[in-house]
């Protein structure tokens, strides 16, 4: 038997596979590092200038002036670096930060920091409140509220992306009537569930849906990293079609039972230049993941790794830095 020492040494010699998401972020950081540094220097210069100006002010205004300048600076910094500084002040949900503002004074405070907030008056706050939403992603293209719904307790705010919006709004502010005000706010991405001819919605599949039935239903079935359906070619065909901007749909069923039983069903539709993925994990033994998950992605890749044999990985990714591993197959 190998000693733990030997095992650790052996394993440490293996090459590490850095996830694509991390690689992208490192590349992005290296490409933009100079811009970041220039911004930092400008801010530093601004602070120094403001401080010098304030020192020149009369004694009576000095304390007040310094306080204001300090606030202005930190808050101003937060505008260009909101992803680092504003997190502490806002609620977090589903990769969005949000803040509900119910009075004019708070609004003014935030407006100093976020110059592009929607215009509101003191009068407006009698019948409305303001919701500020920031995506956690530094690559966020334009976002907008696509729908607002309520039940007795929760205000549901659906956020969608506007791919054609070149202005790339970083901060979204929404004036909402008090009649829609609820105890809780739920912010999430708008769901566009995939559909195709003869499509049976995931929710309508029987609870005891089996891999054998999935094969009969023409799904691509990956069982313990082996494709057991005779349509393995569909995986590469789907990726190729979508790379050529051709609309396509695939249902991949991933079953594994070596460690613990789990069945994950991926409906992937490529439409309007994006991959809409609806994932059913309700048949997994792990209670923590038993859910339906919806997301959209901009890229789908099949990567090959040479382990003992060639292993392929199907992975989706998007500009939100989110990756979804659909599965591995030999």
């Amino acid at each position, binding site marked *: 038997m*190998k000693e733990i020492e030997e095992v*650790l040494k052996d*394993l440490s010699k293996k090459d*590490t596979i850095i996830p694509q998401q*991390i690689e992208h972020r*490192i590349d992005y950081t*290296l490409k933009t590092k100079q811009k970041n540094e220039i911004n930092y220097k400008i801010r530093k210069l601004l602070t120094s200038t403001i401080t010098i100006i304030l020192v020149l002010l009369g004694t009576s205004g000095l304390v007040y002036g310094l306080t204001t300048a300090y606030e202005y600076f930190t808050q101003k910094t937060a505008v260009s670096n909101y992803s680092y500084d504003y997190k502490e002040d806002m609620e977090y949900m589903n990769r969005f930060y949000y803040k509900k503002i119910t009075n004019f004074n708070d609004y003014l405070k935030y407006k100093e920091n976020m110059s592009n907030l929607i215009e509101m008056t003191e009068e407006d706050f009698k019948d409305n409140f303001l919701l500020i939403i920031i995506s956690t992603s530094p690559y966020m293209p334009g976002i907008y509220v696509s729908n607002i719904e309520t039940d007795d307790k929760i205000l549901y705010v659906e956020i969608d992306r506007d791919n054609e919006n070149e202005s790339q709004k970083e901060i979204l502010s929404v004036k909402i009537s008090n009649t829609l005000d609820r105890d809780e706010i739920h912010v999430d991405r708008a769901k566009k569930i995939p559909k195709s001819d003869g499509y049976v919605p995931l929710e309508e599949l029987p609870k005891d849906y089996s891999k054998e039935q999935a094969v009969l239903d023409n799904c691509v079935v990956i069982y*313990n990293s082996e494709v057991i359906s005779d349509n393995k070619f569909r995986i590469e065909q789907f990726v190729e079609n979508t790379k050529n901007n051709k609309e396509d749909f695939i249902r991949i069923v991933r079953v594994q039972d070596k460690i613990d039983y789990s069945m994950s069903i991926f409906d992937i539709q490529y439409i309007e230049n994006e991959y809409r993925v609806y994932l059913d994990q309700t048949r997994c033994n792990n209670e923590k993941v038993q859910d339906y998950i919806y997301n959209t992605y901009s890229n789908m890749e099949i990567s090959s790794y040479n382990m003992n044999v060639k292993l392929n990985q199907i992975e989706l990714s998007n500009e939100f*830095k989110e990756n979804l591993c659909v599965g591995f197959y030999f």
Partner: protein
Amino acid sequence: MEELVKKAKEDDEAFDELINSIKSDLYCIARTRLNDMDDIADAIQDTILTCYKNIRKLKNDKVFKPWLIKILISKCNNIYNKKKKYNISIEENEMDKYIEVEDNLEKIDFEMFIKNLSPDEQTILTLYYYSGYTTKEIGHIMRKNENTIKTKIRRAKDKLRQEYGGELYERN
């Protein structure tokens, strides 16, 4: 490495090369402290920017890598503590999704092998076995006594022995 650090102080391309040469280490170490991929990316991004901002101030080029790892660990701890403070769920280990192909130990990798240890133990083993630092250097990086590091390595190995029992590691 020292030559590259020297160049990186003056030249952006050399800086990129320097970061690319140690990105595996950065990723492996960040993985020992954080589970969420976004958090890991944030920590590495912050570390690179801090490094870029301050590399010219570094007097001794020899200590570049330990210096950078110190920054990284500090960034990771900040993110972890902030999430904890604001009660944001610290997500399940995202690498768990890769587990299904790692169902035999021929395919397992270093970070997966040690993932059940405490964050400190994982970082120390990573620095010791993966990055090749001595216990003294690790003590310096982690601001801990060298003997504490030695004890932690011994305990971590004991835990691994208990966990894996050695049974899965038959000699070829």
